[in-house]
């Protein structure tokens, strides 16, 4: 029997572990499938991490090291190269590694911190052949930054998610030519600063409302056909254009890795593809918490750490005997606001709610109301799906609340 088992030793898992320790938990075990702690940060050798959290621009490995150092100093137990195969509803974990073989352990509390994976090309059903040279952007990043090999020399990138933008710059710096970044939507899903620093600064064309309609090449990619899409995202035949290239990178979305959440019977949210959680990041299964990209995909690691601290402290409280109250205030959204985290509030205390919008809107008013009563509203010049927003609701405002609704109005 272990008090707290954390599945995943990336930024979320590490931050949650430290927070739980600070709140008094001593029996903590981190299970990490990779050889090292740090998760995806290990391969993110560009800078820009930590601006919010530490007020400085760190690389991914530097950011991860700040946490790993603390974990080593505290002497928290970490099992690396350990893959969790199953998590049951009563918190029995089945895992495997080379030293222990396949083993089981019972946890009193579990924090899910498994991160996310990239959407693969199969999900896109692009017509044409299936040659070598098609990679998700993160795989290309791993090949270049971790293995030291260049995936190709002439590149087209489909999707303008942050990893795609980062890789456009990275491949350019490695001497490859990035011919275009195609984005299906009329706006980019990436951060504005990445569009500036990764595309504009290197004269890489961003083709909005464009997609790849066909892949050419027998053994290795020889080219792709791209086309503009109409307002229904259907390719416009006359706009087809052939771009010779040897590599197609895909940056078409991230999917939280909730296979274990499912085996544990955790309720999932269809908008986030992550667990439904309360303000403490506790899931529908008591004592199972979730944080980081397994809960919802974040833009900035700083927010992942912040969220994981909430989960770590809350897990400590749970282990100390405190139970979720009977209070249940659901949070609804109007569609223009795609989702919120948490999706439910179970305690009358100050809560910061993270949310994402479903489209680019200018000059908007975001309102949080309880039935007909407006609790608070906030004006923004511009909101975009690629940038997470927050509002903080006070315990006082929640005093008589029964159901919160988040709405967005274009003014």
């Amino acid at each position, binding site marked *: 029997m272990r008090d707290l088992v954390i599945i995943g030793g990336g930024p979320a898992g590490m931050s949650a572990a430290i927070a739980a320790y600070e709140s008094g938990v001593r029996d903590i075990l981190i299970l990490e499938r990779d050889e090292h702690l740090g998760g995806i940060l290990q391969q993110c050798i560009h800078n820009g991490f930590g601006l919010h959290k530490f007020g400085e621009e760190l690389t991914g490995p530097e950011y991860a090291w700040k946490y790993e150092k603390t974990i080593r100093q505290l002497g928290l137990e970490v099992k690396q190269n350990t893959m969790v195969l199953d998590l049951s509803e009563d918190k029995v974990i089945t895992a495997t*590694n*080379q030293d222990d073989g396949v083993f089981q352990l019972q946890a009193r509390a579990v924090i899910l911190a498994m991160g996310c*994976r990239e959407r693969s090309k*199969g999900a896109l059903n692009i017509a044409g*052949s299936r040659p*070598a040279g098609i990679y998700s952007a993160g795989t290309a990043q791993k090949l270049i930054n971790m293995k*030291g090999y260049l995936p190709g020399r002439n590149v087209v990138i489909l999707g303008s998610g942050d990893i795609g933008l980062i890789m456009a710059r990275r491949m350019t710096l490695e*001497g490859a030519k990035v011919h275009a970044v195609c984005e299906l939507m009329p706006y980019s899903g990436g951060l504005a600063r990445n569009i500036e620093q990764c595309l504009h600064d290197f004269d890489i064309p961003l083709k909005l409302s464009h997609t790849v309609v066909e892949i050419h090449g027998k053994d290795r990619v020889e080219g792709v056909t791209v086309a503009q899409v109409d307002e229904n995202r259907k390719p416009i035949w006359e706009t087809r254009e052939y771009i010779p290239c040897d590599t197609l990178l895909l940056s078409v979305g991230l999917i939280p890795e909730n296979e274990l959440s499912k085996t544990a019977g955790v309720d999932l949210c269809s908008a986030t593809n992550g667990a439904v959680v309360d303000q403490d990041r506790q899931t529908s299964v008591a004592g199972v918490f979730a944080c980081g990209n397994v809960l919802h995909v974040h833009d900035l690691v700083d927010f992942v750490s912040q969220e994981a601290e909430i989960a770590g402290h809350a897990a400590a409280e749970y282990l100390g005997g405190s139970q979720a109250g009977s209070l249940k205030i659901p949070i609804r959204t109007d569609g223009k606001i795609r989702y919120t985290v948490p999706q439910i509030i179970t305690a009358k205390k100050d809560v910061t709610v993270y949310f994402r919008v479903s489209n680019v809107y200018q000059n908007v008013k975001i309102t949080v109301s309880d039935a007909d009563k407006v609790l608070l509203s906030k004006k923004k010049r511009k909101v975009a799906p690629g940038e997470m927003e927050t509002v903080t609701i006070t315990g006082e405002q929640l005093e008589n609340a029964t159901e919160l609704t988040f709405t967005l109005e274009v003014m």
Partner: protein
Amino acid sequence: MYDVVIIGAGVVGGLTAYTLAKYDLKVCILEKENDVAMGSTKANSAIVHAGFDAAPGSLKAQLNVRGAKMMKSLCQALGVKYRQNGSLVVGFDEDDRKVITSLLERGKRNGVEQLQVIDKQQLQQLEPNLSDNALCALWAPTGAIVCPYELTIASIGNAMDHGAELKCNFAVNSITEAEDGYLVASETEQLRSRFVINCAGVYSDEIAKLAGDSSFDIHPRKGEYILLDKECGSLVSHTIFRVPSKMGKGILITPTVDGNLLLGPTSVDIPDKSNKNTSEAGFAEIIAKSRESLPSVPLGKAITSFCGLRSVGSTGDFIITSPKKGFVNAAGIESPGLSASPAIAEYIIDMLEKQGLVLTAKSDYIPTRPPMHTFREASLEEKNKIIRKNPAYGKIICRCEGITEGEILDAIHCNPQARDLDGIKRRTRAQMGRCQGGFCGPSIMELLARELGIPYESVTKSGGASVLTVGKTKGGQQV
């Protein structure tokens, strides 16, 4: 000097080699690609047809029914995944019902057992997710599903364990008669063999012509498929066919032995034997037709799409002939070719024996092969025993499918050895899950480079020019 050379390492060539392995013979399998099972065998519906479809009296009918009966024990012996899930030909109107009645009659004449026509109510009990518009069905409980490339890998593996040779990247470009047999040559190598079997799939007409036989032609007929996530594998339990047309059996919906859901194939005649491109029109057809049968089919759960080529022969039947002594064609092996393949192998060997091939049983012959997925299906205790002996089995490489380093090393070292990323995929399922190799691809490339003793940048996706990286990075070069 070989006794038998088999041209083409697909399922027919593979099972022929497997069947020959029990005799004291020197056998060599020639394959133009970098791995076995690279042609029609790799991309088809993976169905063992009951045998009601082929015209009574045809070779297709005879060998389908016999092959389907052999398939279960064959798969058991070779440790290949097989499931007798039964099939349903679903009718949507009165015309369909007529076709279904005639299929029932045809099936009975072909010797298919347990066939029956069922009504809407029975159909809904068997398959509650099917469209309300489905009126009736032909139910064939003996229909089954199998993994065709696994069958090929296992049969060639067994043959190699018994001494057969496999030469990949051997594209035959000449066949000449010689004393006591034939000279079979590629651009760089030449072999002598007493007997030659042509199992070259869509290229079997060209191979026959090299040997001076122009009696038939093969034209490729493209079939596109969409594969859905394992979450969808139980939406139907039977293989769901539409009533057949001249161009084939229509768009089917079937679970696979690995638990995914497979939709397809389209059916389009094409001139180019190397064209395996998927198309927007193909996707649209698969999607529309699948929805007719199974309205709830969740196309958002697609994990990949692919295209295969059928070898359509000019005679309408399988072309298993011997145009000259010592040379046998197994051509035009389109559907139900996979179902018939064990019987085709038998039939070929019977022909060889009649032409003087002496079949002397080997004393140390073992007809079985341990399954490739032994570790995956072992109990906790068994797994731990294996890991204690070899810790590589404790290290997960492919997290989506839970495939360990030990299993990948087996794929690289067991006959027939995997030499590229796709070869690992077909043997272990690593890279076949939700992320499609996004996480594990670079690590598997490392294992291939290390075990094969080749540079990382020489690792390919599927042989030839399909390199995965083009060189070291600027930083990498300094190391």
